[in-house]
């Protein structure tokens, strides 16, 4: 079984999950509008299924979603990491953060650190994020991360935006101080 690594940044810890995380994981989706952009989680049992699937993904692909916790409080504030359900598609960076933590730079700190990990340890050469067009918070985060809008991909009548993240070299140049 793949061990989910632990990454420590200035203010955050990115690591795996256990069953005790279920309630705070479910709470990430309590803003229904935001939740509808990033998942289909509406109930606690759906949260369990999603959490289990995120963990199983690590086993299947060797990379996956990290839990993101605030170092000072230990509180789960979101999750971010790699996703590739269809092995023929590109590596995707996904991220979900609780609305309450907005404005502190936590999300960029976490996503940059996770992306750096996948570039250096998992052999990723590029990464995209697929974002619901009305998910303005995630689009704003993609921009802050230096990602470039690439194209629109329609799925179930929704035109998802594809954003391409910075390459490993540019990421290191631009964000060398972020993270570790």
């Amino acid at each position, binding site marked *: *079984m793949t*061990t989910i690594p632990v990454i420590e940044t200035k203010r955050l810890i990115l690591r795996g999950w256990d069953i005790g995380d279920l309630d705070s994981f479910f709470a990430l989706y309590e803003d229904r509008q935001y939740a509808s952009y990033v998942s289909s989680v509406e109930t606690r049992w759906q*949260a369990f299924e999603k*959490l*289990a699937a995120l963990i199983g993904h690590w086993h299947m692909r060797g990379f996956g979603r990290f839990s993101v916790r605030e170092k000072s409080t230990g509180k789960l504030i979101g999750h971010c990491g790699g996703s590739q359900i*269809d092995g023929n598609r590109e590596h995707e960076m996904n991220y979900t953060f609780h609305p309450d933590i907005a404005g502190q730079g936590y999300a960029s700190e976490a996503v940059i650190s996770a992306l750096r990990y996948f570039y250096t340890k998992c052999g990723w050469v590029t990464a995209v994020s697929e974002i619901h067009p009305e998910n303005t918070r995630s689009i704003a985060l993609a921009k802050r991360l230096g990602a470039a809008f690439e194209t629109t991909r329609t799925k179930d009548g929704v035109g998802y935006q594809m954003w391409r993240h910075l390459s490993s070299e540019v990421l290191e140049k631009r964000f060398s101080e972020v993270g570790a």
Partner: protein
Amino acid sequence: MKVEFEIPTLETERLRLRGLTEADLDGFASIYADAENARFIGGVVSRHECWRKIVLMIGHWHLRGWGIFALESKADGQFIGYCGPWRPDSWQHDEIAYSLAPGQSGKGLAAEAARRAIRFAYESCGWSSAVSYVDAGNEASRRVAQKNGAHRDGSATILDDEIVEVWRYPSPEQFSALFPFRGSA
């Protein structure tokens, strides 16, 4: 925090119970592609959704310490179905789940696998009781539970509003007396 787990490999007379892998996707998807077969396990779902079900089942091992095994034929390695101890969030009991690929029913394979899974749950997972959930009308599944000594013990509501029959297996002591362990069988 437990971040590692190993899915053991178990054997019965005809089956190997092992961890699910991506190579099982075709066989797994065949279970959910067949309308008659999928009728009692939530209905027909896409291959994409099956991939998600497989990773969910693997992640369940991490969250609970036990979970679903792939069943493969010892004779030729063919994917036969899945079975194992199972407790998603809305479940009211520790359950033994089982489902076979189309064409595999009627040979006693589900009962054989479930018997091994019950023993695993009792001996290795600390369970003191075990049930299987059976959809009303799923006569084949009910027979599988009965073959392993289960009796009807009311109903349970799972997911949001789905009512299933609860079939309770004998206690660990009764179970090991009923089905004494003989080598790998």
